[in-house]
């Protein structure tokens, strides 16, 4: 039996540094390692000698010299960025071995990819991966990791078509209504905690698993792609290394001017008109005293003789010049600050390696809300014997955040988040002024001397009486032990415990508006005139706690075997994973901070409320919830490589989960994939010297998408207890649907990896197609069926196609080194099946936020609009087309008789092209990096003026100023005339008209990073770098001429502001 049959593949060649020397010499083996393209010597390459299992390194000239025993040896040579070389040598050995190493891929720093289950050399993988190294992450600043990936990983993008949190997307959609987010894996296990817990400085690499072959090992949760984050580890045989990084970042005040609103003077004109029409009469009389603007209150006072016309006109003149955004910017908003410090220590001996790091982030938001983060990370790997090694990893994060001031979106009123533009927050003396929040100011004034607490809301100072803080503690502890049962068979057990504990506390003092409002609402006057409080006076203290406990256990067998011509790698295992959620919140009324006492309320008796006198219960503010997700999975994965040129891979996984009530045969969901890779440049016939590396790979497989919210039996949900009967009560949660299936996504991928001579041009080009079937869709049901308006069924199917190009070039070498990286992704999808019972054109036009079109043959998110026929010359009404001629019959244009062919189809709401172009310049000690990011070929619908929203919700729009006023204006404007009463269908038609659709194409400067290495003379510091980073520099080019940033186009989402960071990085 030949010993060299059992070869240990060097998986982490990049980190394996050998310190062996001074061995007994029997026969010396010497030679030189060079780059096959440039011929330059390779320093620090690892040479492994088998069967002795010794490691050596090449010196600075690429030379090596070491003793070997025996007549036959195998030499495995690995070097970062180069293909593994295997040499079988027989005695007598040649005097000098000249070995040319072939560069492996475009990636300069990576040859391995981490799938979370194994570390695979990219070379023998047939899957599709995007790799991002720590070095690449370093050129951006900020406290989170994922946002940095946008310019770095091809095929990954952030979807900003919806307001607020952007959604991370890997290669477009794989589902229509199911969960969208990719699975995030941190060091071998899915991560369930808050992703902001992760400190970017602790990240060694990020691998995006893009195709089925790469991701299917993760089974039913991998349908949307997988992002594997690997944290930094120590290095064997390395003396203590210390690294330090710190920066300070400051961002400009938010640009409130971006919020579409109308001028005070226009708004006042509208209010005057509405008042004259009696629009406010019912609100004025209403028993619940809804808020009115101060001006409307003055009009009523004037007409009741309480104010003179002169007094009203004086106030009007002042109000006309006010813009509440100015005062907010001045008195409320500030610059945003962030400071970050990170210290890392690492080292290793022959038997163990370790890493320790600590981080501290200290930030303050534009609303003066402080937030802090503390990170600790410890890991260690010990080799107890050649057969047994042990790893452990501990990570602890604490995030602390407090609430800040009331900003423009939190100064809410009964009219939603809108405020009239002439709102004033303080008077000339700087004293805070009240704004109407729940009730009319006039009414509150009339209640002032009735013994109640002050009932006014002062937005400038209210935050002083509320202390809200939350603290997130996150801990992961993992241990892995592996035992080599046979030379080529290894068994490992992995366990991870993850716990996240979020505690939030809010103490609202009696002076806080919310408390005063609540106490007053439940106050009533006794017959003797005294006030009786339903809610005890004093502060209100809310405490909330939610915990996540995750336990994951995995047993895995790894088998590797090498023959003369082929290698087999296989793994199989079983995994058990449980996630338990618990949350509880409680409230104390009448809390006294000095004595720690509290009062009590009676939640079971309805109290008459002050304003309307209607009965209402006082909420006890308590709640509790718990739940669990359980998964049990079996998986296997294998690859066989023949002659180093042909690799065949396969993987299979079966998941079972506790999705409620699914019958047992549906709990198990098998998913598989297979792939093939061919290293063309390794063939004898291959003679393209200009392109020394060329690899073709293809894969196909299925991954799934589980949605715990979909079940197959009728379930009910308990909703607490009836206040009337005292018994628990419940509603239906889900209606029985025996036909419900898991969603599956089949994906086919083909890719070409290449690099030119000297790595001047390298990269990969990939194409893929995915077919998703059995997708959940909302299926409208007959309202007579009794199960609401719609149910979820497997009604939809979709197809997606795409291509990812990653191109790295070295444009100039020498004194000025200029490198470019282009990530370009093309993605297109279409619905192939969707159940639509009746086609109503208005469903396809939808709202500003794009919705699922659900139209076979069209993109999942498609933008349609009503054809526009200009404004009517007679009254300035928006006109559509009815039977080819201009019409204002909106009911018919948008009604059930209208056909889809009557609509204008623009295109996809999701960009077809998505990309980033990064240029790096190095000159002497200077480094400059500029990253551009762009999205092309998509459409969006902009927000339009709606008279009904303006009248009812104070929702203005700047285009009001351009509205049609007189015949002839229709030549110059498309903004409809003001009408009263507002016609909702007129507003809806105008909002959905062709003219509101804009092309979303744009390019922006994502960041500019400049670094300078400070020259050092023999100091203990090995490297000292200072850097400056500018981010969110804004739009470079956009297709729309309205000045709208297509990615931050919603009036309630403010774009991130320009930021400047200065930092320092040092290594000892």
């Amino acid at each position, binding site marked *: 039996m030949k010993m060299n049959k059992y070869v240990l593949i060097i998986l982490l060649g990049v980190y394996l540094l050998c310190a062996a020397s001074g061995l007994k010499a029997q026969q010396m083996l010497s030679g030189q390692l060079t780059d096959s393209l440039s011929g330059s010597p390779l320093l620090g390459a690892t040479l492994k000698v088998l069967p002795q299992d010794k490691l050596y390194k090449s010196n600075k000239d690429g030379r090596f010299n070491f003793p070997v025993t025996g007549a036959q040896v195998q030499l495995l040579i690995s070097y970062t960025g180069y293909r593994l070389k295997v040499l079988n040598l027989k005695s007598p050995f040649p005097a000098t071995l000249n070995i040319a190493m072939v560069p492996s891929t475009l990636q300069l720093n990576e040859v391995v990819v981490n799938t979370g289950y194994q570390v695979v050399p990219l070379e023998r993988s047939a899957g599709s991966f995007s790799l991002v190294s720590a070095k690449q992450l370093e050129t951006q600043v900020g406290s989170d990791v994922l946002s940095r990936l946008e310019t770095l990983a091809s095929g990954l993008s952030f979807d900003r078509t919806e307001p607020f949190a952007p959604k991370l997307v890997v290669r477009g959609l794989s589902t229509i209504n199911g969960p969208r987010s990719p699975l995030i894996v941190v060091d071998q296990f899915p991560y369930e905690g808050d992703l902001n817990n992760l400190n970017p400085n602790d990240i060694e690499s990020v691998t995006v698993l893009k195709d089925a072959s790469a991701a299917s090992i993760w089974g039913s949760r991998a349908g949307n792609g997988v992002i594997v984050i690997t944290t930094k580890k120590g290095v064997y045989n390395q003396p203590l290394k210390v690294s330090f990084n710190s920066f300070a970042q400051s961002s400009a005040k938010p640009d409130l001017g971006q919020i579409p609103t109308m001028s005070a003077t226009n708004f006042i004109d509208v209010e005057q008109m509405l008042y004259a029409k009696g629009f406010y009469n019912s609100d004025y009389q209403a028993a619940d005293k809804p808020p009115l603007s101060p001006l409307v209150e003055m009009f009523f006072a004037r007409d009741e003789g309480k104010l003179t016309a002169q007094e009203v006109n004086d106030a009007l003149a002042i109000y006309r010049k006010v813009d509440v955004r100015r005062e907010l910017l001045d008195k409320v908003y500030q610059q945003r600050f962030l400071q970050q410090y990170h210290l890392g220590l690492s080292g290793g001996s022959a038997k163990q390696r370790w890493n320790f790091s600590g981080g501290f982030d200290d930030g303050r938001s534009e609303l003066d809300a402080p937030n802090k983060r503390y990170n600790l990370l410890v890991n260690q790997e010990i080799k107890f014997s050649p057969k047994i090694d042990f790893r452990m990893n501990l990570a602890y994060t604490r995030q602390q955040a407090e609430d800040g001031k009331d900003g423009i979106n939190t100064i809410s009123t009964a009219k939603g988040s809108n405020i009239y533009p002439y709102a004033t927050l303080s008077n000339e003396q700087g004293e805070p002024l009240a704004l109407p929040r729940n009730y009319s100011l006039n009414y509150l004034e009339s209640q002032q001397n009735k013994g109640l607490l002050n009932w006014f809301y002062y937005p400038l100072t209210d935050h002083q009486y509320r202390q809200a803080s939350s603290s997130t503690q996150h801990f992961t502890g993992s241990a892995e032990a592996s035992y080599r049962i046979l030379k080529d068979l290894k068994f490992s057990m992995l366990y991870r415990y993850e716990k996240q504990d979020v505690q939030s506390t809010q103490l609202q003092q009696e002076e806080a508006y919310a408390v005063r409002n609540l106490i007053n609402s439940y106050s009533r006057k006794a017959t003797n005139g005294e006030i009786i409080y339903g809610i005890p006076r004093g502060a209100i203290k809310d405490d909330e706690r939610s915990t996540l406990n995750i336990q994951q256990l995995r047993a895995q067998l790894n088998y590797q075997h090498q023959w003369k011509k082929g290698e087999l790698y296989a793994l199989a295992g079983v995994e058990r994973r449980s996630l338990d959620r618990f949350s509880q919140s409680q409230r104390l009324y009448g809390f006294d901070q000095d004595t720690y006492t509290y009062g009590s309320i009676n939640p079971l008796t309805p109290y008459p409320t002050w304003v309307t*006198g209607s009965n209402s219960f006082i909420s006890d503010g308590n709640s509790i919830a718990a739940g669990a997700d359980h998964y049990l999975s079996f998986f296997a994965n294998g690859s066989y490589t023949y002659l180093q040129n042909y690799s065949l891979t396969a993987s299979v996984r079966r998941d079972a989960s506790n999705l409620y009530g699914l019958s047992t045969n549906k709990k198990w969901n098998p998913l598989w994939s297979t792939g093939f890779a061919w290293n063309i440049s390794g063939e004898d016939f291959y003679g393209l010297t200009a392109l020394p590396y060329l690899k073709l790979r293809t894969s196909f497989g299925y991954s799934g998408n589980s949605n715990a919210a979909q079940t197959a039996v009728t379930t*009910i949900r308990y909703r607490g207890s009836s206040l009337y009967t005292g018994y628990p009560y419940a*509603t239906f*949660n889900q209606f029985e649907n025996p036909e419900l299936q898991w969603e599956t996504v089949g994906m086919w991928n083909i890719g070409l990896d290449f690099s030119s001579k000297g790595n001047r041009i390298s990269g990969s080009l990939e194409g893929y197609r995915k077919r998703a079937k059995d997708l959940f869709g909302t299926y409208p049901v007959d309202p007579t069926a*009794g199960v609401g308006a719609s149910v979820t069924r497997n009604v939809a199917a979709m197809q997606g196609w795409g291509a990812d190009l990653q191109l790295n070039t070295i444009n100039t070498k020498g004194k000025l080194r200029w490198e470019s990286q282009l990530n370009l992704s093309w993605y297109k999808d279409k619905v192939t099946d969707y159940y639509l019972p009746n086609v109503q054109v208005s469903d396809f036009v939808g709202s500003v936020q794009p919705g699922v079109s659900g139209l076979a043959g069209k993109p999942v998110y498609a933008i349609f609009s009503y054809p526009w026929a200009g404004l009517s010359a007679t009254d300035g009404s928006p006109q559509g087309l009815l039977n080819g001629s201009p019409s204002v019959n909106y009911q018919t244009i948008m009604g059930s008789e209208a056909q889809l062919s009557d609509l204008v189809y623009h295109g996809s709401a999701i960009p077809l092209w998505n990309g980033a172009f990064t240029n790096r310049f190095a000159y002497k000690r200077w480094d400059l990096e500029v990253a551009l990011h762009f999205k092309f070929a998509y459409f969006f619908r902009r927000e339009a003026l709606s008279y009904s929203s303006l009248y009812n919700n104070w929702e203005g729009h700047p285009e009001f100023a351009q509205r049609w006023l007189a015949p002839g204006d229709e030549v110059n404007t498309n903004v409809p005339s003001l009408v009263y009463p507002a016609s909702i269908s007129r507003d809806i038609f105008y909002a959905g008209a062709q003219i509101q659709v804009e092309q979303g194409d744009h390019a922006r400067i994502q960041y500019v990073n400049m670094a300078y290495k400070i020259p050092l003379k023999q100091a203990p510091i090995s490297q000292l770098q200072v850097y400056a980073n500018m981010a969110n520099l804004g739009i470079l080019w956009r297709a729309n001429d309205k000045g709208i940033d297509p990615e931050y186009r919603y009036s309630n989402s403010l774009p991130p502001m320009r930021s400047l960071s200065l930092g320092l990085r040092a290594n000892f």
Partner: protein
Amino acid sequence: MKRTYILLGILSAFSSCDKFLAEKPDAKLAVINSLEDAQALLDYYPNVDRNDVGVSEASADSYFLSDAEWARRAESDQRIYLWEKDQLFMPDSRDWRQSYANIYTANAVLESLKKIKRTTQNALQYDNVAGQAHLLRGRTFLMLVWTWGLAYDEQTAAQNLGVPLRLNTNFNEKVPRANLEQTYQQVIDDLKAASKYLPLRGNSKLRGSKLVAWGWLSRTYLSQRVYEPAASYADSVLQVQNTLLDYNQLNSAAAFPIPELNAEIVMDTRLSTPATLAQSRAKMDSTLILSYAANDLRKKIYFRINTDKSYAFKGNYAGGPTFFSGIAVDEMYLNRAEGFARTGLLQKSMDDLNTLLLKRHSTGTYVPLQNLNQTLLIERVLEERKKELIFRGLRWMDIKRWNAGGAQLTLKRRINGQEYVLLPNDLRYAIAIPQNALELGGIEDNPR
């Protein structure tokens, strides 16, 4: 050996798979497999007891809208106000959908009961749950047919359209509209089953009881113009519960003078209040206001005066601005009085009216009715129904059935100077079925 133990230990960590996978993903979820679960569904009052059909009151004649208020309403509400022949409901309108959701709940409860064994220990609770489900289904069908069907007439009931009678939880099944006869028969079957299974009095005014079922049976027969059982079921209720509130004891200056869950209430259910009827919008019909005598306390207790001198409805038995539509003692007196009057028991009828009205007028000022002939007495009962049962979900049905019986009540609206008229027995008294129910359910709309 050692290896074997390790192996066994590892295997056991992954075993017990059935229990592991049977864990509930959310502790608050359950399948209906106990009487408590079924009761919990029936106890969810925000759905079950607060969604009585309200669009009928929005169509009726107790109120009017000013031009400005009408203009501010959604188009569907404007159309309802003007008795348009179609397009009355937005797709998300609740009246129809939530009524059928409640019927689904009742059906789900009844189906779940088939899987639960009735034993001597649980018999009372079992029957109670069954009775509540029948009550919910029966009264919901009744309110649907009052609104979307024409007035019941013995001669034509088999030809006229009723409502779809969904009696199981299979939501894929297409159920056509039954005729009026079948619909009323189903209502009576359900309510009689309820009165059989339910306890005499419920342990909460939000749950059904025999009294409640009888009250609904009285309403059913009254709307069919079958007066003898209408009176006798009302009588059955009054034999057990007949306390009337004395309005002299109430503080008419209060925002809501009548307390919630008061002694007159047999079961507290509420209308799904149409936006049109909100206190600040709906102004009370001036002839209705004028019909209250000076010593009638109801004028001050039910209404408040707006700044423009019009009247707004404060609300009555809900203790707040929502509209009570449940069974209460005052209505039972009126039902019995009408039944007596129609069947010739004139003195008994007058006694009932006097009992009720005595408590509605200032102490010592009420002059009892006497010696009225049948026609005048019936007219008086009808007038008192109008004055007592404001926004109780009954007025539309009353107008319909009286017109079907020969009364000549013509409804009128005036908007922007134009008058809109609804003549007696107009087909539009069966209002238009929501479009999505027509399109998705494939059912027949009311003839126009």
